[in-house]
């Protein structure tokens, strides 16, 4: 019996899972080393630019913002929202366009599925890779914000695990949706949804300014939950609302993983 077989036996592989999602990260790193760094840097710089443009530009006009019981400086108000945004951007970039490429152009997943890897290994591995990028973006953003003296307290560091949960949710959901898309036009749909969601989800102003119906729609969208979650940890205002946000993302992750691995099987193990 060959080596590979012993390994497969010892892992109790099933039709869906070989217990080896980490090799996807290894592959991601090999490919990333020699990659074009421009999109990576832009993804990181974008929220920083937002912070500078809105915080210092608009901030001078707006002055202070009142949310709930607190009145805070505008730049300080938008920082956690932009952190959530940053986590989302990082996760979405890898889980949509990169996944689309590997599904439809390079057929990488098809090749992987001709080895002992199963669909769940691929889904977990790719989503984790996207999550890591989201995490790196948020750490980068937090560093910039701290350098600018905008972190309210040491506890703002807890916003990082919150941001990873947000990244995980978007990565998982993004990959699930991408697995249904076959053309570049369909992929354009993702940006079509993301841009308004980014603008309206309350990273730049409290959503209480909206009419009731619009507020309800926004509160159903994931980014609002992400922003609120990160903001709660950022300001150390952890209350029961936080559990709602966390549950929202846990459900999102579960659905994304389930759908993605099923789709991979349907696409490549027909």
């Amino acid at each position, binding site marked *: 019996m060959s080596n590979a077989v012993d*390994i*497969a036996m010892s892992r109790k592989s099933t039709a869906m899972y070989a217990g080896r999602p980490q090799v996807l990260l290894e592959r991601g790193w090999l490919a990333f080393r020699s990659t074009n760094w421009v999109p990576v840097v832009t993804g990181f710089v974008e929220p920083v630019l937002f912070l500078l443009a809105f915080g210092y530009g608009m901030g001078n006009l707006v002055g202070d913002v009142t949310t709930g019981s607190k009145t805070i400086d505008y730049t300080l108000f938008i920082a956690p929202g932009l952190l959530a945004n940053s986590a989302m951007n990082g996760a979405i970039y890898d889980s949509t366009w990169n996944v689309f490429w590997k599904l439809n152009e390079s057929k990488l997943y098809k090749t992987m599925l001709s080895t002992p*890897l199963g669909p769940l290994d691929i889904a977990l591995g790719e989503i984790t890779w996207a999550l890591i990028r989201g995490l790196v973006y948020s750490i980068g953003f937090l560093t910039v914000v701290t350098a600018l003296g905008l972190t309210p307290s040491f506890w703002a560091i807890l916003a990082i695990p919150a941001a990873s949960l947000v990244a995980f949710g978007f990565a998982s959901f993004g990959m699930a949706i991408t697995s249904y898309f076959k053309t570049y036009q369909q992929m354009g749909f993702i940006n079509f949804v993301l841009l308004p969601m980014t603008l309206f989800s309350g990273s730049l102003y409290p959503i209480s300014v909206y009419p009731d119906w619009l507020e309800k729609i926004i509160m159903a969208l994931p980014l609002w939950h992400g922003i609120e979650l990160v903001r709660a940890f950022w300001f150390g205002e952890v209350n029961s609302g936080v559990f709602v946000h966390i549950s929202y993302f846990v459900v999102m992750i579960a659905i994304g993983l389930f759908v993605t691995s099923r789709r991979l099987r349907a696409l490549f193990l027909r």
Partner: protein
Amino acid sequence: MSNPLISARGLTKKFGDFTAVDAVDFDVAKGESFGLLGPNGAGKSTIMRVLAATSQRTSGTVEILGKDPELFGPLVRAHLGVVPQQDNLDGELTVTENLYIYGRYFGLSKKFISNKIEELLEFAQLEEKRDVKVEALSGGMKRRLTIARGLVSEPDILLLDEPTTGLDPQARHILWDRLFRLKEQGVTLVLTTHFMDEAEQLCDRLVVMDKGSIMAEGSPASLIKQYSSKEVLEVRFGSDRNKEVAPQLATMCERMETLPDRILMYTEDGEKLLEKITHAGMHATTSLVRRSSLEDVFLRLTGRTLIE
């Protein structure tokens, strides 16, 4: 066959209404080298994908080492080295990275793989290209790398779908040699090919397929014996006259095939037949007596010649 390594019964694969593989039965024993022959679209690659546990059959049963590949995909695939008809290398990685990461997909240790890489680079004659991105390789080099990659896990079953297509003669012979040695070590080979010399060289047993069904099965020698005569006389009368003389020639041998450029006459004694033809006053512009080959079996069973 007692205890076959691979066994298929009533294996059927449909794409919509179209039946690509139609109730096929076969067994492959451990250490055997088994070939699938057939014209384009016969269903060879479809069968290979079902065996590789990457395609689900429509009906029938398949067992590889006693396991259904649909239920135990990862476990069955751990036994296999797969060389698909279309190269599917990782275009973002270099030659060595491709070998390395593929081994990692099998869960092999870094140390094991790095020793293996040197051996495989030598086999694929790609030592000088080790750090080149695979996009920059020639077609034949990509093919060699795909084959080498399939060996990284030291599989006990090798599935090779037209492995030598696109290889130069030297590379083909290196591969044949390697496959012989693997066979000696007890590796089971399942391969498809359009090269009859390759099938005769490599296969202990083969099936000839057409339109999703198996037309014949046996060793190369037994198929030749069963479906062809001992010798073949190839005669040419010039493309216009071939048709004219055909009816008369047909009465002189057991079986005959009229191809666009030549006529093949199946007989036990080619020289004698040629004399008879000359005696009857027909003068072939060129003539050739040869032994029957798999090519003739293929032509008889599928009505098609092979484009070599």
